[in-house]
Protein backbone atom coordinates (compact mmCIF):
# COMPACT_ATOMS: atom_id res chain seq x y z
CA UNK A 1 0.00 0.00 0.00
CA UNK A 2 1.19 3.50 -0.75
CA UNK A 3 1.68 6.14 1.89
CA UNK A 4 -1.43 7.91 0.71
CA UNK A 5 -3.53 4.86 1.48
CA UNK A 6 -2.17 4.74 5.01
CA UNK A 7 -2.94 8.40 5.49
CA UNK A 8 -6.48 7.93 4.23
CA UNK A 9 -6.94 4.93 6.52
CA UNK A 10 -5.64 6.86 9.54
CA UNK A 11 -7.93 9.80 8.79
CA UNK A 12 -10.94 7.52 8.43
CA UNK A 13 -10.14 5.78 11.73
CA UNK A 14 -9.59 9.04 13.55
CA UNK A 15 -12.76 10.52 12.12
CA UNK A 16 -14.88 7.58 13.20
CA UNK A 17 -13.32 7.65 16.65
CA UNK A 18 -14.07 11.35 16.98
CA UNK A 19 -17.65 10.89 15.78
CA UNK A 20 -18.14 8.03 18.19
CA UNK A 21 -16.76 10.01 21.12
CA UNK A 22 -18.95 12.98 20.23
CA UNK A 23 -21.98 10.69 20.21
CA UNK A 24 -20.92 9.26 23.54
CA UNK A 25 -20.60 12.73 25.04
CA UNK A 26 -23.98 13.66 23.67
CA UNK A 27 -25.59 10.62 25.31
CA UNK A 28 -23.87 11.44 28.59
CA UNK A 29 -25.17 14.99 28.59
CA UNK A 30 -28.62 13.62 27.93
CA UNK A 31 -28.16 11.32 30.93
CA UNK A 32 -27.17 14.28 33.10
CA UNK A 33 -30.23 16.21 31.94
CA UNK A 34 -32.52 13.27 32.67
CA UNK A 35 -30.91 12.74 36.08
CA UNK A 36 -31.31 16.42 36.92
CA UNK A 37 -34.98 16.32 35.86
CA UNK A 38 -35.48 13.33 38.18
CA UNK A 39 -33.65 15.04 41.05
CA UNK A 40 -35.60 18.25 40.53
CA UNK A 41 -38.89 16.32 40.63
CA UNK A 42 -37.92 14.59 43.88
CA UNK A 43 -36.80 17.86 45.48
CA UNK A 44 -40.11 19.48 44.61
CA UNK A 45 -41.91 16.46 45.97
CA UNK A 46 -39.97 16.72 49.22
CA UNK A 47 -40.74 20.42 49.57
CA UNK A 48 -44.44 19.74 48.97
CA UNK A 49 -44.39 16.97 51.59
CA UNK A 50 -42.69 19.34 54.04
CA UNK A 51 -45.35 22.00 53.48
CA UNK A 52 -48.06 19.42 54.11
CA UNK A 53 -46.41 18.71 57.46
CA UNK A 54 -46.44 22.34 58.66
CA UNK A 55 -50.12 22.65 59.72
CA UNK A 56 -49.82 19.40 61.70
CA UNK A 57 -46.96 20.73 63.86
CA UNK A 58 -47.38 22.73 67.07
CA UNK A 59 -47.10 26.43 66.20
CA UNK A 60 -43.69 27.89 66.96
CA UNK A 61 -40.44 29.11 65.43
CA UNK A 62 -39.50 25.63 64.12
CA UNK A 63 -42.78 25.19 62.25
CA UNK A 64 -42.49 28.70 60.84
CA UNK A 65 -38.91 28.04 59.74
CA UNK A 66 -40.00 24.84 58.01
CA UNK A 67 -42.81 26.65 56.22
CA UNK A 68 -40.42 29.32 54.99
CA UNK A 69 -37.75 26.81 53.97
CA UNK A 70 -40.26 24.69 52.07
CA UNK A 71 -41.70 27.76 50.33
CA UNK A 72 -38.20 28.94 49.36
CA UNK A 73 -37.37 25.47 48.01
CA UNK A 74 -40.48 25.48 45.84
CA UNK A 75 -39.67 28.94 44.50
CA UNK A 76 -35.94 28.42 43.92
CA UNK A 77 -34.45 28.24 40.46
CA UNK A 78 -31.37 26.19 39.70
CA UNK A 79 -29.17 29.01 40.95
CA UNK A 80 -28.59 28.80 44.70
CA UNK A 81 -30.64 25.63 44.88
CA UNK A 82 -28.14 23.77 47.07
CA UNK A 83 -28.29 26.34 49.87
CA UNK A 84 -32.08 26.41 49.81
CA UNK A 85 -32.40 22.63 49.88
CA UNK A 86 -29.83 22.41 52.67
CA UNK A 87 -31.96 24.85 54.67
CA UNK A 88 -34.99 22.63 54.10
CA UNK A 89 -33.09 19.52 55.27
CA UNK A 90 -32.01 21.38 58.39
CA UNK A 91 -35.53 22.69 59.06
CA UNK A 92 -36.86 19.13 58.71
CA UNK A 93 -34.26 17.80 61.15
CA UNK A 94 -35.18 20.51 63.63
CA UNK A 95 -38.88 19.65 63.63
CA UNK A 96 -38.11 15.93 64.01
CA UNK A 97 -38.72 15.95 67.75
CA UNK A 98 -41.95 18.00 67.42
CA UNK A 99 -43.74 15.65 65.04
CA UNK A 100 -46.89 14.49 66.83
CA UNK A 101 -47.25 10.77 67.46
CA UNK A 102 -50.66 10.76 65.77
CA UNK A 103 -49.30 12.14 62.48
CA UNK A 104 -51.35 10.59 59.67
CA UNK A 105 -49.44 7.62 58.25
CA UNK A 106 -49.82 9.00 54.74
CA UNK A 107 -48.09 12.26 55.57
CA UNK A 108 -45.23 10.48 57.30
CA UNK A 109 -44.82 7.97 54.47
CA UNK A 110 -44.88 10.70 51.82
CA UNK A 111 -42.13 12.64 53.60
CA UNK A 112 -39.98 9.53 54.15
CA UNK A 113 -40.39 8.37 50.54
CA UNK A 114 -39.70 11.81 49.12
CA UNK A 115 -36.57 12.26 51.19
CA UNK A 116 -35.09 8.84 50.49
CA UNK A 117 -35.71 9.44 46.78
CA UNK A 118 -33.90 12.74 46.96
CA UNK A 119 -30.93 10.72 48.22
CA UNK A 120 -31.18 8.21 45.36
CA UNK A 121 -31.76 10.80 42.66
CA UNK A 122 -28.86 12.87 43.97
CA UNK A 123 -26.51 9.90 43.92
CA UNK A 124 -27.53 9.00 40.35
CA UNK A 125 -27.26 12.61 39.21
CA UNK A 126 -23.81 13.08 40.67
CA UNK A 127 -22.59 9.86 39.19
CA UNK A 128 -23.81 10.96 35.73
CA UNK A 129 -22.03 14.27 36.28
CA UNK A 130 -18.80 12.56 37.29
CA UNK A 131 -18.85 10.29 34.22
CA UNK A 132 -19.43 13.24 31.93
CA UNK A 133 -16.76 15.40 33.53
CA UNK A 134 -14.24 12.57 33.35
CA UNK A 135 -14.77 12.18 29.60
CA UNK A 136 -14.82 15.91 28.93
CA UNK A 137 -11.52 16.36 30.72
CA UNK A 138 -9.76 13.95 28.38
CA UNK A 139 -7.39 15.42 25.83
CA UNK A 140 -9.28 14.67 22.62
CA UNK A 141 -12.71 16.02 23.64
CA UNK A 142 -11.02 19.12 25.08
CA UNK A 143 -8.86 19.80 22.04
CA UNK A 144 -11.70 19.37 19.56
CA UNK A 145 -14.34 20.95 21.82
CA UNK A 146 -16.54 17.91 21.29
CA UNK A 147 -18.91 19.04 24.02
CA UNK A 148 -19.79 22.12 21.96
CA UNK A 149 -21.03 25.07 23.95
CA UNK A 150 -22.64 23.02 26.69
CA UNK A 151 -21.68 24.04 30.20
CA UNK A 152 -19.60 21.64 32.25
CA UNK A 153 -22.14 19.82 34.46
CA UNK A 154 -21.73 20.25 38.20
CA UNK A 155 -22.67 17.92 41.03
CA UNK A 156 -25.43 18.69 43.50
CA UNK A 157 -24.11 18.47 47.03
CA UNK A 158 -26.44 18.82 49.95
CA UNK A 159 -26.99 17.02 53.22
CA UNK A 160 -30.29 15.29 52.50
CA UNK A 161 -30.53 13.55 55.86
CA UNK A 162 -33.75 14.60 57.57
CA UNK A 163 -33.29 12.47 60.71
CA UNK A 164 -29.92 13.09 62.28
CA UNK A 165 -30.83 15.43 65.12
CA UNK A 166 -27.22 16.16 66.02
CA UNK A 167 -27.04 18.25 62.87
CA UNK A 168 -29.83 20.50 64.03
CA UNK A 169 -27.76 22.46 66.56
CA UNK A 170 -27.05 25.40 64.32
CA UNK A 171 -23.49 24.36 63.49
CA UNK A 172 -24.51 22.85 60.18
CA UNK A 173 -21.71 23.65 57.76
CA UNK A 174 -23.29 22.66 54.51
CA UNK A 175 -20.90 21.03 52.16
Amino acid sequence: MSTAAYVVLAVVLLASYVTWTAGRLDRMHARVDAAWAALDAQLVRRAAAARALVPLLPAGPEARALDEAAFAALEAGQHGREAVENDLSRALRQVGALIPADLPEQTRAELETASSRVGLARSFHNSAVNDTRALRRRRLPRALRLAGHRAMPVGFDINDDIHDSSWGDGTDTST
Partner: protein
Amino acid sequence: MRIGIVCPYTWDVPGGVQAHVRDLAESLLALGHEVSVLTPVDDPDTADLPSYVVPGGRAVPVPYNGSVARLTFGPLSLTRTRRWLRKGRFDVLHLHEPTVPSLSMIACFAARGPMVATFHTATARSRALQVFGTAMQPGLEKITGRIAVSPAARRVVVEHLGHDAVLIPNGVRVSAFAGARPLDGLSAGPRVVFLGRIDEDRKGLAVLLDALPRLVKQVPDVQVLVAGPGDPPEVPPNVRVLGLVSAEDKPRVFASGDVYCAPNTHGESFGIVLIEAMAAGTPVVASDLEAFRRVLEDGDAGVLFPVGDSAALADALADLLRDEDRRAALSATGSQVVLDYDWSEVTRQIVEVYETVAVPAAVELDDDTDEPDVEDFGQEDDPGRVSETLRRWLAVVRERVAP
Protein backbone atom coordinates in the same frame (compact mmCIF):
# COMPACT_ATOMS: atom_id res chain seq x y z
CA MET B 1 -44.35 -0.78 35.63
CA ARG B 2 -42.95 -2.87 32.80
CA ILE B 3 -39.65 -4.22 34.04
CA GLY B 4 -37.08 -6.14 32.01
CA ILE B 5 -34.50 -8.04 34.06
CA VAL B 6 -31.37 -9.64 32.60
CA CYS B 7 -29.59 -12.46 34.40
CA PRO B 8 -26.11 -13.30 33.06
CA TYR B 9 -25.87 -16.84 34.41
CA THR B 10 -27.64 -19.99 33.30
CA TRP B 11 -31.09 -20.21 34.85
CA ASP B 12 -31.12 -24.00 35.33
CA VAL B 13 -27.82 -24.03 37.25
CA PRO B 14 -28.17 -23.10 40.93
CA GLY B 15 -26.43 -19.92 41.99
CA GLY B 16 -26.73 -16.81 44.12
CA VAL B 17 -27.42 -14.34 41.32
CA GLN B 18 -30.03 -16.61 39.75
CA ALA B 19 -31.80 -17.01 43.11
CA HIS B 20 -31.69 -13.25 43.61
CA VAL B 21 -33.23 -12.61 40.17
CA ARG B 22 -35.92 -15.25 40.72
CA ASP B 23 -36.96 -13.90 44.13
CA LEU B 24 -36.90 -10.32 42.87
CA ALA B 25 -38.99 -11.17 39.80
CA GLU B 26 -41.56 -13.02 41.89
CA SER B 27 -41.77 -10.23 44.48
CA LEU B 28 -42.28 -7.68 41.72
CA LEU B 29 -44.96 -9.81 40.08
CA ALA B 30 -46.73 -10.12 43.43
CA LEU B 31 -46.78 -6.31 43.63
CA GLY B 32 -48.56 -6.22 40.26
CA HIS B 33 -45.67 -5.19 38.02
CA GLU B 34 -45.11 -6.71 34.59
CA VAL B 35 -41.82 -8.60 34.62
CA SER B 36 -39.80 -10.37 31.96
CA VAL B 37 -36.47 -12.08 32.70
CA LEU B 38 -33.95 -12.69 29.91
CA THR B 39 -31.45 -15.37 30.89
CA PRO B 40 -29.30 -18.11 29.41
CA VAL B 41 -31.07 -21.47 29.61
CA ASP B 42 -29.31 -24.74 28.88
CA ASP B 43 -32.29 -26.77 27.86
CA PRO B 44 -35.42 -24.69 27.21
CA ASP B 45 -37.46 -27.81 26.37
CA THR B 46 -37.02 -29.78 29.54
CA ALA B 47 -36.20 -27.06 32.06
CA ASP B 48 -39.21 -26.16 34.15
CA LEU B 49 -39.29 -22.48 33.24
CA PRO B 50 -41.56 -19.98 34.94
CA SER B 51 -43.74 -18.02 32.50
CA TYR B 52 -41.78 -14.77 33.03
CA VAL B 53 -38.49 -16.30 31.79
CA VAL B 54 -37.35 -15.73 28.20
CA PRO B 55 -34.42 -17.96 27.12
CA GLY B 56 -31.57 -15.93 25.65
CA GLY B 57 -29.41 -18.72 24.32
CA ARG B 58 -27.20 -21.45 25.63
CA ALA B 59 -24.21 -20.83 27.86
CA VAL B 60 -20.69 -21.82 26.93
CA PRO B 61 -18.40 -23.06 29.68
CA VAL B 62 -15.20 -21.01 29.81
CA PRO B 63 -12.43 -21.68 32.31
CA TYR B 64 -11.92 -18.47 34.22
CA ASN B 65 -10.03 -17.71 37.42
CA GLY B 66 -9.67 -21.34 38.36
CA SER B 67 -13.33 -22.19 38.02
CA VAL B 68 -15.63 -22.60 35.07
CA ALA B 69 -17.76 -19.62 34.14
CA ARG B 70 -20.73 -20.29 31.92
CA LEU B 71 -21.12 -17.40 29.57
CA THR B 72 -23.44 -16.54 26.75
CA PHE B 73 -22.17 -14.78 23.71
CA GLY B 74 -22.62 -14.73 20.00
CA PRO B 75 -24.86 -13.52 17.21
CA LEU B 76 -27.88 -15.54 18.30
CA SER B 77 -27.74 -14.10 21.81
CA LEU B 78 -27.49 -10.62 20.34
CA THR B 79 -30.47 -11.20 18.06
CA ARG B 80 -32.57 -12.59 20.90
CA THR B 81 -31.59 -9.77 23.25
CA ARG B 82 -32.50 -7.16 20.65
CA ARG B 83 -35.81 -8.80 19.90
CA TRP B 84 -36.60 -9.08 23.62
CA LEU B 85 -35.81 -5.38 24.11
CA ARG B 86 -37.90 -4.34 21.12
CA LYS B 87 -40.92 -6.38 22.09
CA GLY B 88 -40.66 -5.58 25.79
CA ARG B 89 -40.98 -1.77 25.62
CA PHE B 90 -39.80 -1.72 29.23
CA ASP B 91 -40.12 1.28 31.53
CA VAL B 92 -36.91 0.21 33.15
CA LEU B 93 -34.19 -2.31 32.30
CA HIS B 94 -32.51 -4.01 35.26
CA LEU B 95 -29.14 -5.63 34.47
CA HIS B 96 -27.39 -7.97 36.88
CA GLU B 97 -23.58 -8.13 36.81
CA PRO B 98 -23.16 -6.14 33.57
CA THR B 99 -19.37 -6.61 33.75
CA VAL B 100 -19.69 -10.34 33.11
CA PRO B 101 -19.41 -11.11 29.37
CA SER B 102 -22.93 -12.39 28.96
CA LEU B 103 -26.49 -11.24 28.21
CA SER B 104 -26.42 -8.31 30.67
CA MET B 105 -23.45 -6.81 28.89
CA ILE B 106 -25.06 -7.38 25.49
CA ALA B 107 -28.27 -5.71 26.67
CA CYS B 108 -26.29 -2.84 28.16
CA PHE B 109 -24.65 -2.11 24.84
CA ALA B 110 -27.81 -2.68 22.81
CA ALA B 111 -30.28 -0.57 24.77
CA ARG B 112 -30.70 2.99 25.86
CA GLY B 113 -33.07 4.58 28.33
CA PRO B 114 -33.63 4.08 32.06
CA MET B 115 -31.16 1.38 33.11
CA VAL B 116 -30.46 0.01 36.57
CA ALA B 117 -27.57 -2.35 37.28
CA THR B 118 -26.95 -4.52 40.33
CA PHE B 119 -23.36 -5.47 41.17
CA HIS B 120 -23.00 -8.69 43.17
CA THR B 121 -19.29 -9.49 42.93
CA ALA B 122 -17.30 -8.60 46.01
CA THR B 123 -13.94 -9.98 45.02
CA ALA B 124 -11.70 -7.65 43.07
CA ARG B 125 -9.19 -10.41 42.59
CA SER B 126 -8.88 -10.13 38.85
CA ARG B 127 -6.71 -7.59 37.20
CA ALA B 128 -8.83 -8.46 34.20
CA LEU B 129 -11.58 -6.29 35.67
CA GLN B 130 -9.28 -3.30 35.52
CA VAL B 131 -8.42 -4.00 31.90
CA PHE B 132 -12.00 -4.70 30.88
CA GLY B 133 -13.21 -1.88 33.12
CA THR B 134 -11.81 0.69 30.72
CA ALA B 135 -13.03 -1.18 27.67
CA MET B 136 -16.53 -1.48 29.12
CA GLN B 137 -16.78 2.13 30.22
CA PRO B 138 -18.73 3.34 27.15
CA GLY B 139 -21.38 0.70 27.87
CA LEU B 140 -21.40 1.05 31.63
CA GLU B 141 -21.75 4.81 31.51
CA LYS B 142 -25.23 4.37 30.03
CA ILE B 143 -26.45 2.95 33.30
CA THR B 144 -28.56 5.45 35.21
CA GLY B 145 -28.83 3.78 38.60
CA ARG B 146 -26.29 1.47 40.22
CA ILE B 147 -26.99 -0.87 43.11
CA ALA B 148 -24.44 -2.86 45.12
CA VAL B 149 -25.60 -5.73 47.33
CA SER B 150 -22.90 -5.31 49.97
CA PRO B 151 -20.34 -2.71 51.07
CA ALA B 152 -17.64 -4.97 49.60
CA ALA B 153 -19.43 -5.11 46.24
CA ARG B 154 -19.80 -1.35 46.37
CA ARG B 155 -16.08 -0.99 46.93
CA VAL B 156 -15.42 -3.02 43.77
CA VAL B 157 -17.70 -0.69 41.78
CA VAL B 158 -16.07 2.43 43.18
CA GLU B 159 -12.47 1.31 42.92
CA HIS B 160 -12.48 -0.64 39.69
CA LEU B 161 -15.16 1.05 37.66
CA GLY B 162 -15.00 4.55 39.14
CA HIS B 163 -18.73 4.80 39.83
CA ASP B 164 -20.80 5.18 42.95
CA ALA B 165 -23.58 2.77 43.85
CA VAL B 166 -26.43 2.73 46.35
CA LEU B 167 -26.43 -0.11 48.83
CA ILE B 168 -29.44 -2.43 48.82
CA PRO B 169 -28.78 -5.78 50.53
CA ASN B 170 -29.62 -9.21 49.24
CA GLY B 171 -33.08 -10.35 50.18
CA VAL B 172 -34.11 -13.30 52.32
CA ARG B 173 -37.56 -14.89 52.38
CA VAL B 174 -38.05 -14.55 56.10
CA SER B 175 -41.40 -16.35 56.06
CA ALA B 176 -39.72 -19.48 54.65
CA PHE B 177 -37.50 -19.69 57.73
CA ALA B 178 -39.70 -18.36 60.53
CA GLY B 179 -41.31 -21.06 62.62
CA ALA B 180 -39.41 -23.98 61.04
CA ARG B 181 -39.50 -27.25 63.00
CA PRO B 182 -36.28 -28.98 64.09
CA LEU B 183 -35.25 -32.07 62.11
CA ASP B 184 -36.62 -35.42 63.20
CA GLY B 185 -34.57 -38.07 64.94
CA LEU B 186 -32.14 -35.83 66.80
CA SER B 187 -30.86 -36.83 70.19
CA ALA B 188 -31.53 -34.61 73.19
CA GLY B 189 -28.99 -32.08 74.46
CA PRO B 190 -27.74 -28.67 73.39
CA ARG B 191 -26.94 -28.43 69.69
CA VAL B 192 -24.63 -26.22 67.62
CA VAL B 193 -25.29 -26.01 63.89
CA PHE B 194 -22.73 -25.37 61.14
CA LEU B 195 -23.79 -24.93 57.52
CA GLY B 196 -21.46 -24.47 54.58
CA ARG B 197 -19.10 -26.26 52.25
CA ILE B 198 -17.20 -28.74 54.42
CA ASP B 199 -14.07 -28.86 52.31
CA GLU B 200 -13.77 -25.11 51.82
CA ASP B 201 -11.24 -23.78 54.33
CA ARG B 202 -12.63 -20.27 54.49
CA LYS B 203 -15.94 -21.54 55.88
CA GLY B 204 -13.94 -22.35 58.99
CA LEU B 205 -15.18 -25.82 59.99
CA ALA B 206 -11.63 -26.53 61.24
CA VAL B 207 -11.90 -23.65 63.72
CA LEU B 208 -15.11 -25.13 65.12
CA LEU B 209 -13.64 -28.65 65.34
CA ASP B 210 -10.57 -27.25 67.15
CA ALA B 211 -12.88 -25.54 69.63
CA LEU B 212 -14.72 -28.75 70.39
CA PRO B 213 -12.50 -30.28 73.15
CA ARG B 214 -12.60 -27.07 75.14
CA LEU B 215 -16.35 -26.74 74.56
CA VAL B 216 -17.02 -30.34 75.65
CA LYS B 217 -15.20 -29.66 78.93
CA GLN B 218 -17.75 -26.93 79.69
CA VAL B 219 -20.84 -28.48 78.08
CA PRO B 220 -20.32 -32.27 78.08
CA ASP B 221 -23.52 -33.27 76.27
CA VAL B 222 -23.12 -30.77 73.38
CA GLN B 223 -23.72 -31.98 69.85
CA VAL B 224 -22.52 -30.35 66.65
CA LEU B 225 -24.56 -30.74 63.46
CA VAL B 226 -22.57 -30.19 60.26
CA ALA B 227 -24.58 -29.59 57.09
CA GLY B 228 -23.21 -28.88 53.65
CA PRO B 229 -21.65 -30.49 50.61
CA GLY B 230 -18.14 -31.94 50.63
CA ASP B 231 -16.26 -34.91 52.02
CA PRO B 232 -16.54 -35.00 55.81
CA PRO B 233 -13.25 -35.15 57.68
CA GLU B 234 -12.56 -37.58 60.53
CA VAL B 235 -14.93 -36.28 63.19
CA PRO B 236 -15.23 -36.87 66.95
CA PRO B 237 -18.32 -38.70 68.28
CA ASN B 238 -20.27 -35.57 69.29
CA VAL B 239 -20.26 -34.30 65.70
CA ARG B 240 -22.95 -35.45 63.32
CA VAL B 241 -22.48 -34.86 59.60
CA LEU B 242 -25.77 -34.31 57.77
CA GLY B 243 -24.23 -33.82 54.33
CA LEU B 244 -25.90 -31.74 51.65
CA VAL B 245 -29.36 -30.53 52.71
CA SER B 246 -32.15 -29.60 50.34
CA ALA B 247 -33.51 -26.06 50.14
CA GLU B 248 -36.68 -27.24 51.90
CA ASP B 249 -34.72 -28.74 54.80
CA LYS B 250 -32.42 -25.75 55.26
CA PRO B 251 -34.77 -23.83 57.59
CA ARG B 252 -35.22 -27.00 59.66
CA VAL B 253 -31.45 -27.41 60.00
CA PHE B 254 -31.19 -23.89 61.42
CA ALA B 255 -34.15 -24.54 63.71
CA SER B 256 -32.42 -27.70 65.02
CA GLY B 257 -29.65 -25.67 66.61
CA ASP B 258 -29.70 -23.93 69.97
CA VAL B 259 -26.91 -21.84 68.44
CA TYR B 260 -25.82 -21.29 64.85
CA CYS B 261 -22.06 -21.05 64.42
CA ALA B 262 -20.36 -19.20 61.52
CA PRO B 263 -16.59 -19.59 62.08
CA ASN B 264 -15.66 -18.27 58.61
CA THR B 265 -12.08 -17.10 58.32
CA HIS B 266 -12.36 -14.67 55.40
CA GLY B 267 -14.00 -13.93 52.09
CA GLU B 268 -17.56 -13.34 53.27
CA SER B 269 -19.02 -10.28 51.67
CA PHE B 270 -22.50 -10.35 53.07
CA GLY B 271 -23.45 -13.05 55.54
CA ILE B 272 -26.85 -14.01 54.19
CA VAL B 273 -26.54 -17.31 56.05
CA LEU B 274 -26.60 -15.42 59.36
CA ILE B 275 -29.82 -13.71 58.36
CA GLU B 276 -31.35 -17.07 57.46
CA ALA B 277 -30.36 -18.48 60.85
CA MET B 278 -31.80 -15.46 62.66
CA ALA B 279 -34.97 -15.71 60.58
CA ALA B 280 -35.34 -19.27 61.85
CA GLY B 281 -35.05 -17.87 65.39
CA THR B 282 -31.61 -19.34 66.12
CA PRO B 283 -29.06 -17.13 67.91
CA VAL B 284 -25.75 -16.71 66.09
CA VAL B 285 -22.10 -16.96 67.13
CA ALA B 286 -19.94 -15.66 64.28
CA SER B 287 -16.36 -14.64 63.61
CA ASP B 288 -15.69 -10.94 63.76
CA LEU B 289 -15.58 -10.30 60.00
CA GLU B 290 -16.69 -6.92 58.70
CA ALA B 291 -19.72 -8.35 56.92
CA PHE B 292 -20.82 -10.39 59.95
CA ARG B 293 -20.33 -7.49 62.36
CA ARG B 294 -22.57 -5.42 60.15
CA VAL B 295 -25.37 -7.98 60.02
CA LEU B 296 -25.09 -8.65 63.76
CA GLU B 297 -25.17 -4.89 64.45
CA ASP B 298 -21.81 -4.83 66.27
CA GLY B 299 -22.79 -7.73 68.49
CA ASP B 300 -26.25 -6.52 69.55
CA ALA B 301 -27.95 -9.20 67.48
CA GLY B 302 -25.45 -12.02 67.97
CA VAL B 303 -22.12 -12.98 69.51
CA LEU B 304 -18.84 -12.15 67.74
CA PHE B 305 -15.50 -13.84 68.42
CA PRO B 306 -12.02 -13.03 67.05
CA VAL B 307 -11.49 -14.61 63.61
CA GLY B 308 -9.88 -18.05 63.82
CA ASP B 309 -9.64 -18.04 67.64
CA SER B 310 -11.03 -21.46 68.58
CA ALA B 311 -10.57 -20.98 72.35
CA ALA B 312 -12.65 -17.80 72.23
CA LEU B 313 -15.20 -19.62 70.08
CA ALA B 314 -15.46 -22.48 72.60
CA ASP B 315 -16.04 -20.05 75.46
CA ALA B 316 -18.58 -18.01 73.50
CA LEU B 317 -20.54 -21.14 72.55
CA ALA B 318 -20.43 -22.51 76.11
CA ASP B 319 -21.59 -19.20 77.62
CA LEU B 320 -24.49 -18.95 75.22
CA LEU B 321 -25.53 -22.63 75.51
CA ARG B 322 -25.75 -22.26 79.31
CA ASP B 323 -27.67 -18.98 79.23
CA GLU B 324 -31.23 -19.56 78.08
CA ASP B 325 -32.37 -15.97 78.74
CA ARG B 326 -29.57 -14.58 76.59
CA ARG B 327 -30.50 -16.95 73.76
CA ALA B 328 -34.14 -15.89 73.94
CA ALA B 329 -33.13 -12.22 73.91
CA LEU B 330 -30.82 -12.67 70.89
CA SER B 331 -33.50 -14.64 69.09
CA ALA B 332 -36.01 -11.83 69.65
CA THR B 333 -33.54 -9.16 68.48
CA GLY B 334 -32.65 -11.32 65.48
CA SER B 335 -36.22 -11.63 64.29
CA GLN B 336 -36.46 -7.81 64.29
CA VAL B 337 -33.15 -7.38 62.46
CA VAL B 338 -34.09 -9.78 59.65
CA LEU B 339 -37.13 -7.70 58.68
CA ASP B 340 -34.75 -5.19 57.03
CA TYR B 341 -33.53 -7.99 54.76
CA ASP B 342 -36.89 -9.50 53.90
CA TRP B 343 -37.69 -9.51 50.19
CA SER B 344 -40.69 -7.24 50.77
CA GLU B 345 -38.41 -4.51 52.16
CA VAL B 346 -35.62 -5.11 49.63
CA THR B 347 -38.10 -5.03 46.74
CA ARG B 348 -39.60 -1.79 48.06
CA GLN B 349 -36.15 -0.19 47.93
CA ILE B 350 -35.43 -1.53 44.45
CA VAL B 351 -38.77 -0.23 43.16
CA GLU B 352 -37.85 3.13 44.63
CA VAL B 353 -34.72 3.05 42.46
CA TYR B 354 -36.81 2.13 39.40
CA GLU B 355 -39.20 4.99 40.06
CA THR B 356 -36.34 7.43 40.51
CA VAL B 357 -34.70 6.58 37.17
CA ALA B 358 -37.79 5.88 35.09
CA VAL B 359 -38.70 8.79 32.89
CA PRO B 360 -41.61 8.91 30.45
CA ALA B 361 -39.38 7.42 27.72
CA ALA B 362 -39.14 3.65 27.66
CA VAL B 363 -36.11 1.49 27.03
CA GLU B 364 -35.38 1.18 23.32
CA LEU B 365 -32.68 -0.12 21.06
CA ASP B 366 -29.71 2.18 20.80
CA ASP B 367 -29.41 1.98 17.02
CA ASP B 368 -32.91 1.05 15.98
CA THR B 369 -32.52 0.77 12.28
CA ASP B 370 -35.61 -0.58 10.58
CA GLU B 371 -34.31 -4.11 10.55
CA PRO B 372 -36.94 -6.77 9.98
CA ASP B 373 -37.86 -8.84 13.00
CA VAL B 374 -35.60 -11.74 12.05
CA GLU B 375 -36.84 -15.17 12.91
CA ASP B 376 -34.09 -17.35 14.17
CA PHE B 377 -34.06 -20.68 12.47
CA GLY B 378 -33.59 -22.70 15.58
CA GLN B 379 -29.84 -22.71 15.15
CA GLU B 380 -27.85 -22.48 18.31
CA ASP B 381 -24.52 -20.72 18.23
CA ASP B 382 -21.98 -23.45 17.70
CA PRO B 383 -20.80 -23.85 21.29
CA GLY B 384 -17.54 -25.51 20.31
CA ARG B 385 -16.47 -22.72 18.02
CA VAL B 386 -17.49 -19.88 20.32
CA SER B 387 -15.88 -21.58 23.25
CA GLU B 388 -12.63 -22.00 21.34
CA THR B 389 -12.54 -18.33 20.30
CA LEU B 390 -13.32 -17.14 23.82
CA ARG B 391 -10.77 -19.43 25.35
CA ARG B 392 -8.04 -18.15 23.05
CA TRP B 393 -9.08 -14.59 23.71
CA LEU B 394 -9.03 -15.13 27.46
CA ALA B 395 -5.62 -16.77 27.24
CA VAL B 396 -4.25 -13.69 25.53
CA VAL B 397 -5.81 -11.42 28.09
CA ARG B 398 -4.54 -13.53 30.96
CA GLU B 399 -1.03 -13.36 29.56
CA ARG B 400 -1.21 -9.60 29.42
CA VAL B 401 -2.55 -9.09 32.90
CA ALA B 402 -0.50 -11.77 34.59
CA PRO B 403 1.70 -10.16 37.22
